[in-house]
């Protein structure tokens, strides 16, 4: 049922097929200029603290990819939480015999994010060709594990922003902050002082999204190894589960349970 819902959304969007191409082109503009800026800097300094052009590109693109995939599913439904509550439109979802969370999420798939998923993915793959990595099956598998974990971590933050709207108002503000704040990991976090690195690893673990997987992949020796990858997966799943429970707690409170 869930995938069917998602498919319905995509189908509805495809009706305006031309605009999808338009979206991709628009996103491309941003990418081109960002990479141009990176190129200019590397042209002058030969590398960014030892990271080559394509390595930085990969870091960027991986971040976009992870973020866009999580956002495609979760961003819009959480953004609409406050609206739904105010307009009493939440009832329809609470009434169905299916899992309300899945219903809301499935009904609000954001096809716009797909342009970033595609572009980010493409740039990442292209960059990989220019970076010497000795691939092993284990390495690839663990990398994918960490990607999944990363998506759940970012997704967890999105759902958290939505769940919060049961207590305070306006999930939209937190979501905007989230969207902006994450640009801190466009460059390797080693440019920041130790304190901030710790913050980005343990407390607002954005660095887990792209930095650590990347270091694991081709920047050894570094502070990331196979265990780190598994840790990211574990952290992602547990964090998301927690946030998911929080969301449901908010729903029950909204329904007046226990009052």
């Amino acid at each position, binding site marked *: 049922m869930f995938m069917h819902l998602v498919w319905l959304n995509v189908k509805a969007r495809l009706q305006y097929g031309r605009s999808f191409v338009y979206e991709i082109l628009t996103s491309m503009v*941003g990418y081109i*200029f960002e990479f141009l800026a990176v190129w200019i*800097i590397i042209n002058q*300094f030969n590398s960014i603290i030892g990271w080559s052009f394509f390595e930085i590109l990969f870091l960027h693109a991986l971040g976009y990819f992870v973020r866009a995939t999580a956002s495609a599913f979760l961003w819009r439904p959480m953004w609409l939480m406050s609206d739904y509550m105010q307009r009493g439109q939440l009832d329809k979802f609470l009434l169905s015999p299916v899992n309300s969370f899945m219903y809301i999420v499935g009904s609000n798939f954001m096809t716009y994010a797909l342009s970033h998923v595609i572009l980010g993915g493409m740039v990442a793959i292209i960059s990989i060709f220019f970076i010497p990595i000795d691939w092993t099956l284990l390495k690839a598998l663990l990398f994918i594990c960490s990607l999944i974990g990363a998506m759940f971590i970012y997704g967890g933050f999105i759902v958290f922003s939505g769940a919060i709207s049961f207590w305070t108002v306006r999930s939209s503000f937190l979501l905007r902050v989230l969207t902006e704040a994450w640009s801190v990991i466009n*460059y390797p976090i080693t440019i920041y002082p130790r304190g901030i690195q710790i913050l980005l690893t343990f407390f607002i673990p954005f660095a887990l999204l792209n930095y650590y997987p990347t270091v694991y992949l081709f920047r050894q020796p570094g502070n990331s190894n196979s265990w780190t990858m598994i840790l990211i997966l574990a952290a992602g799943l547990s964090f998301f589960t927690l946030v998911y429970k929080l969301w449901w707690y908010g729903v029950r409170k909204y329904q007046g349970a226990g009052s």
Partner: protein
Amino acid sequence: MARYCYMAYLSFKSSIAYKAEVWFGIFTSVLTLSIQIFLWKALFQYGESNVGVSFDQMITYFILSTALSLCLINSSVLDEIAKDIREGTIANYLAKPYKYKISLLSKSLGRIFFSLLFVIMPMIIISSIFFTIQAPHSLVSLLATILISICSFYIFFSIYYIAGLSTFWFMGMQGAIGLLIENILRLLSGALIPIWIFPKWLYTIASYLPVRYGFDVPISIYIGRTAGSDIVKGIAVQFIWILSLIIVDNIVWRISIRKLVIQGG
């Protein structure tokens, strides 16, 4: 005249309603600024490249650049013109292009003044806790910087103005146009990266564009990289640019209006 002052005031006032925007603006600008500074700190420490200025000067560069971006790189004018075209209200100004431009200017100024007070000031205060902004190279430099910055406002306004009118031909594409312009402005004006480290070919392009007077020129003067007769040269060329843009503005306006009349509004 009073009418336009009032317009600016209203613009100012309506910005107050959006408290979240203020917090968000402060947050984003401090964040972007910090990322830039940390990146360049690492660049300076790691690589051995002669950038021509010290790291402390770069800090000042970025703080000023962030502050100026908030004033100059803003697509509100573009959005407003696109809206007026879409809803047809632009027809009211058919005979009085002057008035339209000035009203847009006033509203813009209102917004900028608001940003200055509630976003830029806090941003500078917060940044100065962590980073030190240097004093201007000299009094003359400071005056020149202020003069050039204020005048560059018109340059950026003009660009957005023309872009806004271009939506006549590119209906529905205002988002993409705004984005494209924002990126070009940020890069080629020196807001993101000082243009003097651009590769030769890019530097040439940037040096022939008027947008460098928003960032590269005034900030270079402030930190002392440009001095003496170069300052005077800069002011003169900027002046020529402004005059040219006024002319181009009017031409674009006239072409647009003709299209509007032909279409039937």
